[in-house]
């Protein structure tokens, strides 16, 4: 048997009050993927870890595996606070969507370092986002890239059913991609219409690096359509 204590880098993706002064923290760790840990006495003013385990924080955390699936936090060191996310309401709201996606999409204790790296880059980029629209683009792009890591990226290069590239008009969460006019009218799978702008933006948000998103020109309607694509795809694959 190995040691029951281990240390890993982790991003705090959730936090829930527990008992009188404790919290159950959900972490996405580099070494073991998503897991939950009990932070005892965290809400007391004398707690040494209180400020370190706030959502969006990047930490190096020591965890002890006790009974059951719940770990206990035995030590925390802050690596980055990403305070920028918490300084603006719009960043927090967009950030909440990103953390919810991670919480719902990944199984417990399945290490996936690319996901960890992507998540940290996404939160870092969000902390410096200039406007609500920029923040929305960053989070949509990060969520699409997370889907891509799992192999669930929406197919946008051609119709998800026939492969054709002509007159693409909608998106089907069930088929996992865009559909052309012919297939949409024939196919029984549910789909919804997408504008040309949303189709183009969807492709860019999947393939452009996070650092280059500020060059993307989108309006609110396009963002709303892409949001629908991402939400429904996540709902289709979420656990």
């Amino acid at each position, binding site marked *: 048997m190995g040691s029951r204590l281990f240390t890993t880098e982790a991003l705090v993706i959730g936090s829930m009050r527990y008992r009188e002064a404790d919290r159950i923290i959900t972490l996405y760790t580099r070494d073991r993927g998503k897991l939950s840990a009990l932070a005892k006495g965290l809400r007391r003013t004398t707690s040494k870890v209180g*400020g370190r385990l706030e*959502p969006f924080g990047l930490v190096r955390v020591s965890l002890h595996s006790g009974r059951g699936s719940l770990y206990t936090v035995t030590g925390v060191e*802050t690596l980055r606070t990403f305070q920028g996310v*918490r300084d603006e309401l719009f960043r927090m709201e967009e950030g909440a969507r990103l953390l*919810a996606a991670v919480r719902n999409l990944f199984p417990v204790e399945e290490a996936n370092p690319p996901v960890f790296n992507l998540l940290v880059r996404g939160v870092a980029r969000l902390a410096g986002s200039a406007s609500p629209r920029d923040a929305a683009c960053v989070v949509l792009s990060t969520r699409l890239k997370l889907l891509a890591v799992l192999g669930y990226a929406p197919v946008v290069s051609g119709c998800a059913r026939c492969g054709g590239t002509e007159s693409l008009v909608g998106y089907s969460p069930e088929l996992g991609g865009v559909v052309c006019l012919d297939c949409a009218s024939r196919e029984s799978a549910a789909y919804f219409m997408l504008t040309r702008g949303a189709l183009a933006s969807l492709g860019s948000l999947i393939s452009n690096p996070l650092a280059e998103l500020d060059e993307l020109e989108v309006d609110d309607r396009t963002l709303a359509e892409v949001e629908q694509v991402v939400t429904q795809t996540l709902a289709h694959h979420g656990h």
Partner: protein
Amino acid sequence: MFSPRVQKLIDELSKLPGIGPKTAQRLTFHLLKLPPEEALPLAHALIEVKETVRFCARCFNLTESELCSICADPTRDRSTLCVVEEPADIISLERTHEYRGLYHVLGGALSPIDGIGPQKLRLAELSERVRAEGIQEVIVATNPNMAGEATALYIAEELRPLVEAGTLRITRPAAGLPMGADLEYADEVTLSRALAGRREIR
């Protein structure tokens, strides 16, 4: 296993926070063993508190009359309003004997992560009160965690027109080191806030 009435008591007790089925069972048997004159005051106290205690019509603190003792107190400073998440926070602040203004209890904090939006809190009532009562300073004393910070930002945004008109000041209690603590053990977030909010020694 137990008679239906005993089982009912166990079930009710285990709904309480921090009480599991085992503890509920132990409490139930303890209550069963007590003579009536020792067990029944608990039941009476519970009925009384549920029948008489309600929310203050103005600040949503707990009270047994229309207004809570703080709102009804004519010596309190009516130009200052301290916003807190829960009635229990008022007790903590009152213990300092430093604050003489009024309160407003939100009933929680905004939490985008948990899907708690503005309409679930008494934020509209806050806006209305600040305007109607001619409040000059709002102290946002929500908890210094993400939900509390989100709430503070939201309130600042809602009341911005009054601040810009020069009729209102919005403040937030300083975040810093707990008295009696060692600097060595302070976390980075608290310490950087403490540095940002440092003040001159006179």
